[in-house]
């Protein structure tokens, strides 16, 4: 029955692919040759698992002593997928050599259940790029499964697949089915913490009509629904309880849509949101398959690593549990109380290996040690009187006598000295050595990874060990990724093992949740720290994507001394596709300029603020760009708003006050902002008196001189300033 469906599906396909697919359909009339294809996105294009992912790709990180991608491939094998494409970005060679030596590659292993398995290396820097690349390769011939390389699931997808096909036969515009796991309304460890995906679903048709993401620091907790939706659909469910496991059943049309919208980067917030919003335009519908039994979840950050590990040990993922010994050579046995032990584990008589614990082959635990709720890899040596609680310890780790490890992750070949204390949330990366009596503070991240010196040089430097952290004879230094400098809260959400909002300032409006190509390792610290601006500025949390992209675009132009005319086109495109407000545009531009200038000021050259500002404004077309885009209406309110954006952003910069003053001066000189606006902005700020934020006051202090000068100039020649303003307005209207 599936053949005939497939034939029809193919006939419904679009243009070029039509003939090919129809042929494929015909071939399958005789025997069931219509195979299922799947695409695994093995690169996450994120840095949430740093410092571990500096050295290993996410999909090879061990979850319950089995690399993550094994779970994903088991899921696909269970579903009966025949052809697999694995998209890798960073660490392609590691993934490749792993797959080639595993049982999965059909050319090297008789055990492979797949007909073909192709590893595609891509230079893509986002999921969107990868899918656009996939589209251009023309490898996908029919419906395919799109999954991430960190999926753990035991769902049988046959039913979802059948429903998808039935819908497809009825309506060729039903291009995608998302499989979502119901997670209940209460607290749930596996539900995404922090950012809550909101799916608006028409339950009758299983159709997703709107998608948004909410985060706890968002000022308003509303989802904006188009009233048309309420007219068109009799029932609507707004669901925040769903665990998004990232399993999508896609038709080739999905790839075409990705290709058409070059600015989509992530599958949900960009693609899903965008396609649903453009329903009127393209008529494509996306459906949901909400399942409420079996298991499906992604390991998308360290907290979910923790929760999915617990689920695996609790056997929720059955049969994907350690004692199924999925990987060749494993020999786990299950003992009551969820103790999974491999052969050749040496336990001292007086040690206690408690519940929900995994012990890998060759591991020894010394006398008096207590291990509970922990996963310990192979060939680890745990000394005497060690306490290990809720911890994840990978392979070949040495832990000295009397140490205490709690809720931490310790990666391969790390050496922990005697009587060390590792506190909750600590991440200790590969080969780090800690000397005796070291204490690791909560959430500290220690690595030995080589670091790229600067964004422009490709050489990697060994970073000297930091004795204050790892002790006199230790190896390693504290890892801070770029965003750490500016206390990015996205990192706080995703890159710590323990979820907490305590240290976050909840009065702030909103934060960025975006983690895309920008975050790859060789980026300068610049684009990342810009995210900090969200913390203080944004009050429209739903459009972080726009802000992020916009700022990045302008920054690129400024960095490269490019031409603003082309930047403007791109910018306007972005604006339209995201439906950004004028305020957002101003904010993005303000942030980009102030960021660029402060980089110049704080950078190695130590440019003077005024010169830096001059050089920024000297970039081709910068001035008209500011006039036409940032202050398109030319009203005084807009100019004031723009200044306020600048001021707020400057708060986060080391040289903020200087930059603000320099930029104000330039704005005035280039006749972008009239003096009326300056004065009004200043008076409003002054008017706030005691209510004004101390930081804000500090930042604008330096600009005071300039404003004073303005006032004097105004009092000297009132008519002059008036004409100035008129001129600038006229100019902006001309263009």
């Amino acid at each position: 029955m599936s053949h005939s469906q497939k034939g029809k599906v193919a006939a419904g396909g679009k243009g070029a692919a039509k003939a090919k697919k129809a042929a494929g359909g015909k071939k399958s009339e005789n025997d069931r040759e219509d195979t299922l294809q799947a695409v695994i996105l093995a690169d996450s294009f994120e840095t949430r698992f740093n410092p571990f992912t500096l050295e290993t790709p996410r999909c090879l990180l061990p979850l319950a002593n089995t690399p993550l991608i094994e779970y994903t491939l088991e899921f696909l094998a269970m579903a009966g997928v025949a052809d697999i494409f694995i998209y890798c970005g960073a660490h392609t060679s590691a993934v490749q050599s792993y797959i080639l030596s595993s049982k999965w590659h059909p050319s090297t292993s008789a055990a492979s259940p797949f007909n073909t398995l192709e590893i595609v290396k891509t230079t893509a820097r986002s999921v969107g790029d990868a899918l656009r690349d996939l589209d251009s390769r023309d490898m996908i011939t029919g419906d395919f499964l799109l999954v991430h390389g960190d999926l753990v699931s035991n769902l049988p997808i046959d039913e979802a697949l059948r429903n998808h096909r039935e819908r497809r036969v009825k309506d060729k515009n039903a291009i995608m089915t998302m499989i979502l796991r119901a997670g209940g309304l209460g607290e749930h460890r596996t539900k995404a913490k922090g950012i809550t995906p909101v799916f608006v679903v028409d339950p009758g048709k299983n159709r997703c009509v709107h998608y948004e993401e909410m985060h706890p620091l968002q000022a308003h907790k509303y989802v904006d629904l188009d009233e048309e939706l309420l007219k068109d659909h009799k029932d609507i469910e707004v669901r925040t309880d769903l665990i998004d496991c990232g399993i999508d059943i896609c038709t080739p049309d999905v790839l075409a849509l990705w290709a058409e919208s070059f600015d989509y980067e992530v599958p949900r917030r960009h693609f899903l949101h965008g396609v649903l919003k453009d329903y009127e335009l393209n008529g494509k519908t996306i459906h949901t398959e909400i399942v409420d039994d079996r298991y499906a979840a992604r390991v998308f950050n360290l907290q979910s690593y923790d929760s999915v590990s617990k689920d695996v040990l609790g056997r929720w993922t059955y049969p994907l549990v350690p004692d199924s010994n999925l990987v060749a050579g494993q020999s786990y046995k299950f003992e009551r109380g969820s103790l999974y032990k491999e052969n050749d584990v040496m336990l001292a008589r007086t040690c206690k290996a408690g519940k929900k614990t995994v012990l890998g082959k060759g591991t020894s635990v010394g006398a008096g040690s207590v291990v509970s709720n922990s996963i310990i890899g192979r060939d680890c040596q745990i000394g005497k009187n060690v306490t290990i609680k809720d911890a994840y310890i990978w392979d070949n780790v040495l832990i000295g006598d009397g140490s205490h490890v709690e809720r931490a992750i310790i990666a391969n070949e790390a050496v922990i000295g005697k009587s060390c204390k590792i506190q909750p949330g600590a991440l200790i990366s590969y080969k780090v050595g800690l000397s005796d009596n070291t204490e690791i503070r909560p959430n500290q991240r220690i690595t030995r990874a080589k670091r790229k010196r600067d964004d422009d040089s490709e050489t990697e430097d060994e970073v000297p060990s930091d004795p204050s952290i790892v002790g006199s004879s230790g190896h390693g230094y504290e890892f801070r990724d770029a965003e750490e400098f500016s206390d990015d809260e996205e990192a706080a959400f995703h890159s710590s093992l323990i979820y907490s909002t305590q240290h976050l300032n909840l009065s702030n409006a909103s934060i960025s949740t975006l983690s895309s190509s920008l975050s790859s390792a060789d980026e300068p610290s610049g684009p990342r720290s810009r995210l900090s601006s969200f913390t203080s500025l944004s009050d429209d949390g739903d459009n972080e994507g726009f802000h992020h992209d916009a700022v990045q675009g302008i920054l690129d132009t400024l960095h490269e001394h490019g031409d603003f005319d082309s930047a403007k086109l791109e910018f306007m495109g972005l604006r339209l596709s995201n439906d950004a407000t004028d305020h957002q545009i101003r904010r993005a531009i303000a942030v980009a300029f102030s960021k660029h200038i402060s980089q110049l000021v704080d950078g190695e050259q130590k440019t003077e603020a005024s010169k830096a500002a001059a050089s920024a404004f000297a970039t081709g077309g910068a001035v008209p760009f500011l006039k036409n885009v940032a202050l398109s209406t030319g009203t005084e309110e807009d100019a004031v708003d723009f200044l306020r954006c600048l001021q707020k952003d400057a708060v986060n910069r080391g040289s903020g006050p200087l930059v603000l003053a320099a930029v104000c001066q330039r704005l005035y000189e280039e006749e972008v902002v009239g003096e009326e606006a300056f004065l009004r902005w200043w008076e409003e700020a002054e008017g706030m008196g005691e209510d004004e934020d101390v930081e804000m006051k500090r930042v604008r202090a330096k600009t005071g001189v300039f404003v004073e000068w303005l006032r004097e100039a105004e009092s000297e020649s009132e008519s002059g300033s008036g004409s100035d303003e008129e001129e600038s307005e006229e100019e902006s209207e001309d263009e």
Partner: protein
Amino acid sequence: MPSLQAGYAPNLSFYLKSLKAQPVESSIENLISLLKRRQITNSRPCAVATAHLLLQVVAKFRWTNIDKLIKRIQDVGRRLIEAQPREMVVGNIVRRVLGMVRDEAKEDRNEDASDSASNSQSDRGASHSGGPPPTFSPLRFSTTDDSDSTEATGDDVFEGQSHGASRPPLITSHTSYAPAGGLPPQKSMFQLLSANPSPASTPPGAQSPQNTSNLNATSLAHRITTSTKDLKAEVIEGIEEIVDELDQADDRIAAQSLEYIHSNEVILTHSSSKSVQKFLLEAAKKRKFTVIIAESYPNDHEATHKSVTRSISTDAEGADELSTPKFSKSLSDAGITVILMTDATIFAIMSRVNKVILATHAVIANGGLIAAAGARIIAKAARVHRTPVIVVSGVYKLSPQYPFEFESLIEYGDPGNIVRYQDGALVENLEVDNPVYDYVPPDLVDLYITNIGAHAPSYLYRIVADHYKTEDINFDKPELQ
């Protein structure tokens, strides 16, 4: 389930279809993965898959002497057992095949040494007299003669004869209905030692005439097509007989039902076992009785409900087990009064029950059994009320192993069947164990009904000895040998 059939997910029928086309090595690995992923579960599917796989292994393996073949089978068997040690039938089937190969080899050598060709010829004649027309045997001999002449060495002639003589599996399969045909008494010894005693051989009359004629026809066909001198063919034939046995075990068990179920009795059973259902349906053809089914929540309750209520039409599509004949009536359709109840009420109802019939997952050599979770409570309650407990099981489920830790045989399944995963607080704070099986000690069981007759638990060791060679019992554990 029909959904599985329509989709891509591999299962037993996909696997069996793929066997012929794939190279042996990938078939082995494939079965290992399917077992590990629990896409082939439960005794019969596992047994069927194992038997078919071994058939391919033997058929496609080039071997020069019998030891190599044994080693190869052991090797494959070890890997399969390692993949899923709790599906004990996998090991059972491997051991059965091993024992059968050893027998063939022994026969082979014996016949070489002693000139008993005439003896066996007369045996054959005797067995033929029961069923097939005697004209077949000249035909068969002529084929052997032909091949002998083509191969043209004196040794070969001898060997050909000896092979012809060493056909215990075939002969026994014929003798199963042969008592009427006057089987020579010395044959029974032969049967006892025979590696693959035909399921029907022991209980006379346990077989329906229909079955015998089928079996007869198929084995006859084998006999004509396969050259008798080929040891490989013998082995393959032996495995095919095991497959046949798997197919027919339930029918043979069901055929005995009238001896155990009487009119107006109240029978208590549990879970949705096909064997038990057939047993009951067979009895329902002649008698009226009441069946109380405990739903065996949470792992099997849906299937149990279905077995009570499903209509004929849906069942025709619901082909979940490939090689077993479809079973098209629900219990209530067959005129049985069916009462479905929760597992918790077992003890309360036990005083009114005349007999308890249990299905098994595996039977252990000591007479104990591994059965769906809940079986032990039922057996215990029955003991308190002195209600007889009858276990229905094919011989293929009888394992020669005697595990010292019964805990290790019990599989723990998906806790999601007990606690909904949506319930975050419970998931976080509870440890949920979902044992799929129970161990029922032998003293709680009164009688085993197998496809070769009914036995007391204490007698099972004897059946084990008949079916498995001692050297094969621990073949998967080199350290115990």
